[in-house]
């Protein structure tokens, strides 16, 4: 806010306070941003001719999307969707089963330092690489098909679930843990009766959320050979069966939407 220059005279104009107070930093960000944008756009090699050429093609392309063809000529559509759903379920379960020990190990208040560092390393590695890259390697190792997708999604789940579990354990109340320990509980009893009840509601909600994410990701691991609806989608693109592709996209959107609603409903019910 600009204040009045002289005492006594009431300010007659007002200017909005800038978002960044330090004017040097503000100008640095503006100028730096402009230079970066110019450099970025300059090196992007946008081929306008190709875009112009592509736009009528886009028209034809979108036309061939409609009407979506749900008739499923090759009998792979529903099979692909079923495969995606099974893959999402099993990889969520396996991923969570793997996440629990790692999450316990990555909680600073439970684990000794070397276990903590090891488990944090596993989490960081799994978080860094997108599921697709994990899927590429899983396909190389385990061959084409849903098993590779299952491995990739399970590994991806670890980075998400173990990290949040560890953070939740670190935030849980220490006094309850102490109370249970004072009764002479052993380590497993201690975890089961003091930590587990505190983190359980949130973790159930997160596992449903992860199921939702895994289904979404299962739609793309197929592009690199990991099975599921993504494989069907990729095939229909390669075969120029755009009406089938449109049908698949619509089904994916509908399933994701319904899963999102059920998962948010379920999470409210659990908490």
């Amino acid at each position, binding site marked *: 806010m600009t204040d009045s220059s002289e005492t006594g005279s009431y300010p007659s104009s007002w200017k*909005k306070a800038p*978002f960044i107070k330090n004017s040097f930093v503000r100008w640095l960000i503006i100028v730096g941003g402009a230079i*970066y*944008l110019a450099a*970025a*756009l300059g*090196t*992007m*090699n*946008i*081929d306008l001719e*190709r*875009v112009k*050429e*592509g*736009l009528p*093609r*886009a028209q034809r*392309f979108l036309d061939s999307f409609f009407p979506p063809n749900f008739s499923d000529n090759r009998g792979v559509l529903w099979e692909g969707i*079923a*495969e995606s*759903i*099974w*893959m999402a*379920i*099993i990889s969520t*379960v396996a991923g969570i089963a793997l996440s629990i020990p790692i999450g316990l190990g990555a909680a600073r208040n439970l684990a000794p330092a070397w276990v903590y560092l090891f488990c944090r390393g596993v989490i960081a590695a799994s978080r*860094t*690489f*997108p599921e*697709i*890259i994990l899927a*590429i*390697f899983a396909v*190389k*190792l*385990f*061959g084409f*098909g*849903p*098993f590779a997708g*299952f491995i990739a999604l399970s590994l991806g789940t670890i980075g998400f679930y173990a990290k949040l579990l560890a953070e939740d354990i670190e935030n849980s109340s220490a006094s309850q843990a102490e109370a249970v320990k004072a009764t002479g509980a052993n380590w497993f009893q201690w975890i089961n009766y003091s930590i587990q009840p505190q983190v359980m509601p949130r973790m159930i909600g997160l596992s449903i959320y992860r199921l939702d994410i895994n289904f*979404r*990701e299962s*739609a*793309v691991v197929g*592009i*690199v050979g990991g*099975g599921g609806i993504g494989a069907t*989608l*990729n095939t229909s*693109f390669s075969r120029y069966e755009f009406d089938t592709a449109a049908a698949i*996209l619509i089904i*994916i*959107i509908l399933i*994701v*939407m319904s899963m*999102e609603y059920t998962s948010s409903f379920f999470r409210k019910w659990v908490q």
Partner: protein
Amino acid sequence: MPAITNNGIETWRLRTSKEQWIRWVCWLIGLAVIMYAWQMISEKTVWFFVTDAPTQAADIGSRMVPPKWSYMDKLWKPVWDTINIATIGTIIAMVIAVPVAFATARNTTPNIVVRTIGLFIIVSSRSVNSLIWALILVFILGPGVLAGTIAIGLRSIGFCAKLIYESIEEIDHTQVEAIEATGASGPQKMIFGILPQVLPTIAGVGIYRWDINIRESTILGLVGAGGIGLQLNGSLNTLAWTQVSLILIVILITVFISEWVSAKVRGAII
């Protein structure tokens, strides 16, 4: 209190019999679904390849070291492209997401039709993965950075708009009322009453999404949409494993740096 009577002595139990039965049935159903899912997956698996995996892993692992450091010369441009795809994609997304968020928030848009349209944009953008957007856009715009940028942008609209509209719905209404009391018009109320309250969220969401987009733009090249994924795909197809390991290291470093930058900037804003 649930209790069990055994030889006339009441013993405490955590759950009543009915609760216990319900739990048991739920577990049974859950396990049955999991077993069925596993069976469906294992039916389609060639187990020979799976049992062969450790040898394969050792083989690929031995081919991947040492990384071919000299290949780095050819990677600077793809890394730069990857960062540009993420940054410009995020900017496009934010430019579209902010109006969509205002159109979707209950307190800024009383009209139910507009709100439904906004929600539809958010959901459809969130449901389709950026790789699928890229797959479609490569057909339309041709392979290259542009398709990737727009794919990232389209994918991010939903995410950003959702977080922004939720924070618009949670603003403090007394401030808006105070602005209204000065005789401000609708747009003025929005600019001086609502926007300052959500600006930190908008900036924070943008930075957060940028960080996610860096990660996503590393793979867009797999379908031809530019960035380092193109090199990764090429190296994988030509079985140049020493290049693959170098690319993975580069991705790892890029992601770590972007995560660090994002955490620092968000810490400074909030």
